[in-house]
């Protein structure tokens, strides 16, 4: 990563990123730019460097911010009409930590509204185009951030991952993405989706850059009581864990043969780098998606109840009394997918269905976590695809929510178990579309995954 110093000017780094952002405007990575403020901050950093003052570990590094992180520059929209004029009164802890180390936000990136979706087509501001093939989706929900890194506009970008929203777009655009152990990075100041699986992570072109950004963001935050004590170290550990389990349940029916080929080739690269790869079956994983589409909508229904048109955000002009204020605001301000999730969430939580759906899912979640624990007694790392197929064409799945949910089938089980999982570039299909491999480990072993990925890349 290029960091400002006596030779490299922060202003040049920021200007270059802003120019590239303009050059690739057609891809629609960004919802809003932060040009004036970014250049001003870069100048401040250059002045401090010129004076010989100490600057941060990310001094002058331009980055892109998923537009569901709150910060006072401009507005934070979460790509929803509900918030399209919301000047955030607070700053997300993750953003504050990056800015304290000198990183400079150049713009806010596109997402599926409220981070709900797997293609970035569900944005109030229109979709983002895939970096490798602009006729295809970026993946999602952190599609804008993934494409901004893949196109080389910025060297890193923030995303959030509740069920695959960093990993799947990383895979679709051929870059690295991390969903860390639950609780690694504070959720404070990020628009809440499903609180028990919301994790904050990032995209970059290599494992070392991911490591640096995560090291800056990770650690306890008094404002998020679920954050863990900092376990992240500045250096990646040596890649000494050697036993890899290739999940056969995700390599068969319903998975694109080109995806299977790329992941198998990645497994071969791992063997070449000295790892043992054995097949492992975890039948419980196939229930992950059904569990997730009960737990997550239930949490969405609760978290999105705050958008009522009263305190902030949109207020419908159609309102004539308090009830219609709520109902019309929530009809206008949410995208159809947000509404479906709220309805499903209230269904699984409603009297008469709570035990059969919500409670059942939370019990099944316990079984899923047990299955992971057993698997990690046999192997150090699990390997599988990130998604069943490469990036799809625009509109292909927009009218079929269940088909869109299937995108998440290989990424949600890890989210439910709170374990770390990274997406690494594994190859390309015959149509030249990027395919990612997913590496997962038990909680707290995030850096082990990065060091293995780095090692495999070096030995290739």
């Amino acid at each position, binding site marked *: 990563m290029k960091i400002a110093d006596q030779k490299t000017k922060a202003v040049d780094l920021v200007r270059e990123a802003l120019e590239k952002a303009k050059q690739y405007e057609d891809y629609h990575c960004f919802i809003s730019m932060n040009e004036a403020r970014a250049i001003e901050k870069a100048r401040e950093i250059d002045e401090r460097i010129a004076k010989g003052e100490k600057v941060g570990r990310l001094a002058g590094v331009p980055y892109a911010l998923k537009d569901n992180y709150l910060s006072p520059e401009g507005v934070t929209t979460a790509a929803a009409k509900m918030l399209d004029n919301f000047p955030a*009164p*607070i*700053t997300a802890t993750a953003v504050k930590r990056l800015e304290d180390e000198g990183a400079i936000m150049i713009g806010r990136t596109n997402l599926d509204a409220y981070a709900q979706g797997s293609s970035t087509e569900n944005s109030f501001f229109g979709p983002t185009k895939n970096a490798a093939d602009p006729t295809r989706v970026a993946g999602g929900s952190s599609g804008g951030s993934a494409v901004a890194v893949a196109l080389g506009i910025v060297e890193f970008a923030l995303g959030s991952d509740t069920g695959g929203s960093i990993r799947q777009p990383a895979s679709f655009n051929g870059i690295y993405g991390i969903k860390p152990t*639950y*609780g690694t990075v504070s959720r404070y100041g990020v628009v809440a989706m499903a609180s*028990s699986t919301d994790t904050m992570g990032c995209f970059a072109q290599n494992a070392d850059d991911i490591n640096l950004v995560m090291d800056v963001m990770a650690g306890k935050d*008094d404002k998020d*009581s*679920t954050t863990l004590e900092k376990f992240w170290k500045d250096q990646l550990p040596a890649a000494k864990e050697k036993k890899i389990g290739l999940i056969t349940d995700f390599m068969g029916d319903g998975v694109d043969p080109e995806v299977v080929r790329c992941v198998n080739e990645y497994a071969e690269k791992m063997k070449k780098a000295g790892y043992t790869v054995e097949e492992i079956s975890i039948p419980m994983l196939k*229930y992950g*998606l*059904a*569990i997730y*589409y*009960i737990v997550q909508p239930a949490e969405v*229904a609760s978290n999105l*109840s705050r958008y*009522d*048109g*009263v*305190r*902030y*955000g949109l*207020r419908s002009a159609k*309102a*004539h*009394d*308090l009830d*219609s*204020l*709520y*109902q019309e605001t*929530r*009809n206008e301000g*949410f995208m159809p997918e947000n*509404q479906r999730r*709220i*309805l*499903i969430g*209230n*269904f699984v939580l*409603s009297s008469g269905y709570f035990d*059969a*759906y919500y*409670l*059942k*899912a*939370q*019990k*099944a*979640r*316990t*079984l899923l*976590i047990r299955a992971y624990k057993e698997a990690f007694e046999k192997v150090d790392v699990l390997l599988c695809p990130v998604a069943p197929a490469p990036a799809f064409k625009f509109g292909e799945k927009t009218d079929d*929510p*269940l088909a869109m*949910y299937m995108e998440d089938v290989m990424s949600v089980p890890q989210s*439910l*178990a*709170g374990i770390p999982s990274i997406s690494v570039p594994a190859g390309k299909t015959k149509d030249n579309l990027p395919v990612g491999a997913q590496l997962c480990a038990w909680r707290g072993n995030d850096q082990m995954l990065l060091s293995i990925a780095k090692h495999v890349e070096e030995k290739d």
Partner: protein
Amino acid sequence: MSITREDVLHLATLSNISIAEDEIEPLQAKLDDIVGYISQLDELDTEGVEPTYQCFDMKNVWRADEITEFEAKRDDLLALTTECEDHQIKVPKVL
């Protein structure tokens, strides 16, 4: 379990979302698909299994009972509302 038109209307009321008449039928079909899919958990035996609501099994996480300065000022927060008078948020009449 299949989702009826009445279910959709009931869920819309619970969710405080108004739904246009012509949206009800397509929504009913989509919700029915989703509920059909998630019902596959019926296959699992979860007898005697404890639910997991939070991965790390955290109990109460306490902080010191001290007043701290909040980063936003009252006026900044009230400025986010559509209608405000004398530091009070205004809404349409309830009754």
